[in-house]
């Protein structure tokens, strides 16, 4: 039977010839990820369940990113409990301040094409951009995976998105995924997988694909997947990882629906508080005053995002009324952005750079927004109270839109600055 990409991965991991949507399958998990904030809760549940040893210490990553750099002693306790457990269990994939979990899953090769990846974070869907079936769970369930190495999953129906054409200059993958979320709504893909294909995807960098997959959860998706190609292979080859299958969806696979997009028609988009599906073309909020600008997160804190912003602000000054915060998604990205001159350009323009971590996107630190203020931000959520007070307004946008709006002190269209 013809299968979608999600079905193929799940069938393979469930050791079945084929699976169909709605079927419950128990699958072997390839890798898990837990971070500082929830790790102590996983550890507690793991012990309470009566487990003594994790099923495989090499398949567990523990990443500190939400609480880095810790703002109080309580947060440091999360580090201590996590480190003690990792030490006792022989878990070595521990990253104390190397960057955001989803970026590291990709960067370090912990998540590979064709893998089933579970993380205690909704944006675990990110590495669907390289063709992994990656999804988020709660900490109790993670404890049971740590103990057993497996999980039950309901095979999701798949929504297919065919994107043809090319993005215009100043328009990015972020604008595309915002557009899609706006079209299908915050629950448009609940319980379902989103699969992205078409000629645009092959043209996009892997970083931009990760951006698209990352935000699929904002439409409720269980996973957002793309078939891996040569660009993806190249990344893993550099890491010395070649032992994974290059799965592709069957041409005649059964989709719940197929939506078609012409990338060349896309314009810069924004999503305004209080919901991610409150999407509109940027021009509808053009001119609105912004007080903060945030460039970072697992959505858009990668090298090309930072370089895009740097190219727009180089030699200019951030508007004096705007506080611009740049938080690279990983230590490696920070180093690369220094090498490329992007960090110098941004800081000379008036931005400041914080420790690679979740930063403001977590709402726990990193530049929380005041009530009554508006931020333009490259991250993924704009819920009430997520990144600031209940009346803080969050406008989600592409890195280019964030950068030019920071210069202008108000929302402006990046295409006017190219």
């Amino acid at each position, binding site marked *: 039977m013809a299968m979608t990409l999600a079905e193929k991965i799940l069938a393979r991991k469930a050791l079945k010839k084929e699976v169909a949507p709605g079927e419950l399958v128990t699958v072997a998990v390839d890798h898990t990820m837990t971070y500082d904030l929830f790790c102590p809760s996983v550890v507690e549940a793991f012990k309470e369940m009566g487990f003594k040893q994790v099923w495989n210490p090499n398949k567990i990553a523990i990443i500190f990113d939400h609480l*880095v*750099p*810790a*703002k*109080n*002693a309580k*947060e*440091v*306790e999360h*580090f*201590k409990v996590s480190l003690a457990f990792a030490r006792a269990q022989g878990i070595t994939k521990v990253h*104390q*301040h190397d960057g955001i979990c989803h970026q590291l899953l990709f960067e370090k090769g912990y998540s590979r094409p064709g893998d089933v990846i579970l993380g205690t974070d909704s944006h675990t869907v990110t590495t669907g951009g390289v063709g992994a079936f990656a999804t988020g769970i709660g900490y109790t369930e993670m404890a049971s995976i740590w103990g057993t190495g497996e999980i039950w999953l309901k095979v999701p129906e798949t929504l297919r998105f065919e994107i043809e054409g090319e993005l215009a200059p100043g328009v990015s993958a972020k604008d595309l995924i915002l557009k899609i979320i706006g079209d299908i709504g915050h629950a448009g893909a609940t319980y379902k997988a989103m699969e992205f294909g078409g000629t645009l995807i092959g043209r996009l960098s892997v970083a931009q694909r990760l951006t698209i997959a990352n935000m699929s959860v904002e439409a409720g998706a269980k996973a957002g997947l793309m078939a891996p190609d040569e660009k993806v292979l190249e990344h893993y080859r550099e890491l010395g990882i070649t032992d994974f299958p290059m799965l592709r969806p069957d041409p005649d696979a059964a989709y719940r629906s197929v939506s078609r997009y012409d990338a060349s028609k896309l314009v810069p988009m924004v999503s305004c508080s209080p919901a991610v599906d409150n999407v509109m073309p940027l021009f509808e909020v053009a001119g609105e005053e912004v007080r903060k600008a945030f460039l970072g997160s697992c959505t858009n804190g990668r090298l090309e995002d930072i370089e895009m912003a740097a190219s727009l602000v180089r030699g200019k000054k951030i508007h*004096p009324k705007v*506080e611009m*915060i740049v938080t690279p998604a990983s*230590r490696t990205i*920070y*180093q690369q952005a*220094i*090498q490329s001159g992007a*960090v*110098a350009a941004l*800081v*000379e323009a008036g931005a*400041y*750079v*914080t*420790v690679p971590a979740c*930063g*403001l996107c977590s709402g*726990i*630190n*990193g*530049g*929380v*927004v*005041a*009530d*009554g*203020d508006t931020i333009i931000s490259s991250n993924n959520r704009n819920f009430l*109270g997520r990144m*600031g*007070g209940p009346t*803080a307004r969050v406008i989600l946008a592409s890195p280019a839109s964030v950068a030019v709006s920071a210069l202008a002190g108000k929302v402006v269209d990046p295409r006017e600055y190219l």
Partner: protein
Amino acid sequence: MAMTLSEKVLARAAGKDEVTPGEIVQTEIDWIMTNDATTHVSIDIFEQKLLKQEIKHPERVIWVVDHNIPAESVETANVHRKQRIFAGKHGFNSHVGEGICHQLLVEKYVLPGQVVIGADSHTCSHGALGAFATGVGSTDLVGAIREGSLWFMVPATLKFHLTGKLREGVTTKDLILTIIGDISANGANYRAMEFSGPAVSTLSFESRLALCNLVVEAGGKNAIMEADEKVVGYLRRNRPQGATGVVLQGDQGAAYEKFFHYDLSQIAPVVACPHAVDNVSPIIAVEGREIDQVFVGSCSNGRIEDLRILGRILKGNRVHSRVRLAVSPASTRVFLQALEEGLISTFLEAGAMVLNPNCSTCWGGCQAVVGDGERLLSTGTRNFKGRSGSALAEVFLGSVYSAGAAALAGKIVNPINYLGL
């Protein structure tokens, strides 16, 4: 009558021929600094207690957001907003996220001979420029903001005569900690601490700032040093108009309350042990204690000179696996200089966390703090219980050499031996 340097600066600002210790003088204030830790308190006093809410010299007021940036809570964000609206309404000089207030004042504002107050105790740093600079509380600050002037009691001066030369691996941090250990945390209460002598010319301008920065930890009202060609040279290079202020000297035969003599060649690495800055001990007495976090930064030791030393120590090495090393350049300018020199890359390569320019671990309210039972070696200013996070943590203060060596060793070590200096 012969006057000390502090007396001369105050006399000039008060428009008097002379002043004597104990005298109360009203002086114009050249710079009034207020930061995000307390500006909202001053705003409340200003708006609730003053009948006439006008500000004579808003151009003299400098508002800096450096303690809690990036904002770590909604409360902080709302406080910043309140301050921003007030600063904007009155036309203050505003600096958000550009670095630590005391460093920004050095880079952009303070000149020799000026009188500076700040709603922050480490305002005494600017004595290194030959200015009279001291910390005040919120009510004093409101008065100064309102009038552009303030009363001071002229302090008696303690003179520290410095001879000899610091050996490699020993810094003015070791010197000032040694002094504080000797005279105790209230040994200079209400007093000016004046540093002079042939050794001064051997000290870089930046290391003098570090020296003056900590006098408040001995209770000093202000620190002061004559501005020499190193200071003037710094100003020529860094100020757009090349302004160098009014360089004053203390008079021969001025009356000092007390003299102290320090031979810098005899200074060895020391640390201030928990939980008081005057609990100073030679570093060899505490060698071997395991360290969980090291902090390099603050208004005390976050300047380019400090980062260069740290860079030399870290280059080609990895931070010990047990240690979180947090580095926070004191300002955007320091960050950019360090970036250009490859230091930021060196820190990242070695496994350090590079924080945005701010008070960070030394303030303990926003980022990179320590937990229960942890031990921190910090180049910051204070080691009080709970200062850098948990009240159950231990904070040791030391030089950037001691900090860098501990970051590699995972424990307190004598940097001179450990680094082979």
